[in-house]
């Protein structure tokens, strides 16, 4: 009797404690998601209209060349950035996963770029990539190479965005991989050595399979982030030249908040969310498929 009364009180307090979280979640997640879906079928423009237009927005976006160009841009970016991110972060982690003197300093130096905001990083790189007086082309000129105008040519603009985002991403993924590497049991390496496995084989058959959960985490997060690229593209190139670095989030921002076509922008947001879902599922399938091979 007393017990159940106590439990009842505890339960009430439990609900009370989560009330602020649930309220905010309802107002700023549940309602917006439902509304986003509704808005994507309207011509909402903030000022006056919010009429139901059926599938008009979705019909319109199928024929929207600019939208598909932004998707091509961000897919190109993702396909290059995500594998490079995994590769470089893992390599740096493997390099710095030892107990040598000074290793902490090296880790810190590699971690620092992740602390910077996307805007500050992009601002610094605006100058690094300056065609005449920038660090990169100045460095290339030591070897007699005339570097390109990185940000103003459509061929190299996306490469520049990849460089900047990679520079910012390596540090935190390195730390995640270091944590993963620390979790690989030593005896696996010991017994592999007894069997005469060389370093490459030890990586191929022990380290890489053992790190699969870590790689899955890193790849999932970087796919979701990459497909929603905005900040760096906005600061470095304003989406240019000739929309070569314009991304879907950039376009949605412009459509929604500059041109106030919020209904149409909502439908674009759903298409992007769908793309993120598909890519995440592919990634999940890939890491599952790998499991059966090893």
């Amino acid at each position, binding site marked *: 009797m007393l017990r159940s009364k106590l439990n009842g009180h505890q*339960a009430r307090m439990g609900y009370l404690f989560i009330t*602020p979280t649930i309220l905010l979640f309802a107002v700023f997640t549940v309602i917006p*998601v439902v509304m986003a879906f509704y808005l994507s079928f309207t011509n909402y423009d903030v000022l006056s209209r919010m009429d139901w237009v059926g599938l008009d927005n979705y019909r319109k976006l199928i024929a929207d060349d600019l939208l598909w160009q932004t998707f091509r841009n961000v897919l190109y970016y993702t396909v290059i950035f995500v594998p490079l991110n995994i590769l470089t972060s893992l390599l740096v982690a493997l390099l710095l996963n030892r107990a*040598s003197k000074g290793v902490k300093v090296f880790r810190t130096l590699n971690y620092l770029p992740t*602390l910077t905001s996307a805007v500050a990083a992009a601002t610094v790189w605006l100058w690094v990539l300056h065609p005449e007086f920038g660090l990169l082309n100045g460095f290339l000129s030591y070897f007699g190479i005339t570097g390109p105008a990185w940000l103003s040519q459509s061929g190299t603009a996306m490469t520049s965005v990849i460089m900047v985002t990679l520079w910012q991403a390596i540090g935190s993924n390195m*730390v995640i991989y270091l944590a993963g*590497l620390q979790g690989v049991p030593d005896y696996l390496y010991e017994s592999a050595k007894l069997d005469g496995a060389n370093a490459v084989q030890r990586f191929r058959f022990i380290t890489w399979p053992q790190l699969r959960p870590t790689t899955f985490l890193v790849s999932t997060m970087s796919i979701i982030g990459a497909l929603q690229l905005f900040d760096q593209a906005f600061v470095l190139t304003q989406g240019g030249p000739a929309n070569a670095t314009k991304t*879907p989030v950039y376009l949605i921002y412009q459509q929604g908040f500059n041109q106030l076509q919020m209904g149409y922008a909502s439908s674009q947001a759903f298409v992007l969310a769908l793309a993120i879902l598909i890519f995440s599922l592919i990634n999940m399938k890939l890491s599952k498929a790998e499991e059966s091979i090893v």
Partner: protein
Amino acid sequence: MKSTYSSNPAYLRALRSTVFYVIATIVSLVMFMPFLWSVLTSLKPDDEIFAFPIRWLPSRFTLEHYSDAFNTVPFLRYFGNSFYLAIMGVLTNLFFGSLGGYAFAKLNFKLSKPIFRILLAAMMIPGVVTMIPSFYVLMHLPFLGGNDWTGSGGNGLLNSFWAIILPGASGTFAVFFMRQFFLTLPSDMMEMARIEGAGEFRIFLQIYLPLTKPALATLGIFTFQAGWNSFLWPMIVLNDPLKHTIQMGLQAFSYNHQTDFGPMMAGALVAIVPILILFILLQRYFVQGIAFSGVKG
């Protein structure tokens, strides 16, 4: 990779160690170079900034770019705005996050598990989907910012700092993070305190919360960093130039003064420094936090 060198001759060991230091130094230098370069640029006189080939060290150090940056743009004001927003984000997330996390970890109630699962699942929703409707919701909150009970008439919370503080006040990550930490704490202290007649909120606040200091530090750092560095959402909801954040100010500066690289670098460094100081002071919590996010996967 750990390996036993005992079987290797000494010269091989020395060689491996040298190779390690050479490669690690090169990699770290490449990663650090943009910082060094921007610091040097911010301290050089203009004619030495635009020099070819690169002039690494300035003939004299000058702080004029810093005063230029602060005089053309109200950076100090932006700095203060960003600081306020980041601190509010930290306070709200630490409080609501630990309150919710504690409830999910330590209190028994029927819907605890299903609600928690829904929260976790919702973390998968990309931010771009809720961006536009969140704007709508903030604009039409009833009774606020000149709105009547139907939520129309005024601008709601748009253009106020609440438009940033409220939507992020109780992040799911904060709740999840704190829950994981509370789960590691024993429950018998709770029973004891109840027998002695302490209320549930007091048990939370005076017994359990003080034990979570390391977790609070880690969560606080990440929330501060996220708040300080955020860009797109503040740009959407804050129109009033006096309310702009440091990231918005920096972007506007680099857009409007495209050739003033000295002040631009000074501004960028000012936008980086608070996080850098935080990092230097609380380094171990940073690493713990990332390691945690790696474990959860």
